């Protein structure tokens, strides 16, 4: 069986390798600040995946919200709470091996399920090349987000959640 990788597949493998490799560094680096910078690299890899999935608007939002805001917040918190850890103290807890065992088992179950479901004859169309994305998909998304029959109510609930969360965060920090 010969493998002919298309350009699309090579780009997917590259973005996936960056994402996963950086993610592994995030959870294994002892220094939280280093882990935060690897997190940014991993998030940029996910942006590449969104571009490959032909969702450029989501890729832009991802870049702004995650790498712009979330990663900045995390780096800030990592700097503010940076504990000059005692030399020799570890970043992982004593039972890290149990966590690794659970994570590997969960991964095996997920991959097995994926392969079983996708491999079924009924769902062969999952393997097929998908339908093209409509030309005005971003405009359709914007319309749907403010359409009362679409996602206007979920958007309003999300806004309320953001307001409540930010008020809560401010209240927690003001107490001292």
């Amino acid at each position, binding site marked *: 069986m010969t493998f002919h990788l298309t350009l699309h597949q090579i780009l*997917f493998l590259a973005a996936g390798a960056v994402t*996963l490799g950086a993610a592994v560094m*995030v*959870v294994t680096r002892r220094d*939280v600040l280093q882990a*935060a910078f690897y*997190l940014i690299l*991993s*998030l940029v890899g*996910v942006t590449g*995946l969104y571009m*490959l999935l*032909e*969702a450029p608007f*989501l890729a832009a*939002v991802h870049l702004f*919200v*995650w790498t712009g*805001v*979330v990663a900045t*917040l*995390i780096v*800030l*918190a990592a700097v*503010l*709470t940076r*504990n000059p850890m005692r030399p020799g103290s570890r*970043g*992982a*807890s004593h*039972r890290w091996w149990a*966590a690794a065992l*659970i*994570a590997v088992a*969960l*991964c095996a179950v997920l*991959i097995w399920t*994926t392969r079983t479901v*996708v491999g079924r004859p009924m769902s062969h169309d*999952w*393997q097929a090349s*998908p339908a*093209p*994305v409509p030309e005005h*998909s971003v405009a359709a*998304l914007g319309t*749907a*987000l403010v359409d009362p029959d679409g*996602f206007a109510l*979920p958007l309003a609930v*999300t806004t309320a959640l953001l307001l409540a*969360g*930010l008020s*809560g*965060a*401010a209240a*927690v*920090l003001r*107490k*001292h």
Partner: protein
Amino acid sequence: MVPLEWYLILAAALFCVGAYGVMSRRNAVAMLMGIDLMLCAVGVNLVAFWRYREPTAVTGQAFALSVYAVAAIETAVCLALTISLWRTRNTVLMEDTD
């Protein structure tokens, strides 16, 4: 194109790496990064299913956008709690916070 299966397996692996981070790290900020990785994996799954199953519908992208809102607010609240913990107890290690 890449089969949908590849995206699902990648997202599953990313989710499990994040889950390992949440379960194994001692530092609250590092645990938060694990949660962020898990949310990222969820977003990849949502967008992959949108692209391969229903590219004409907007549902998948709208769901992915709400994941962003939840992730942003979760990060803000968690960091406020962490910084508050740091101010009161001068630690961010989870085993010191009982």
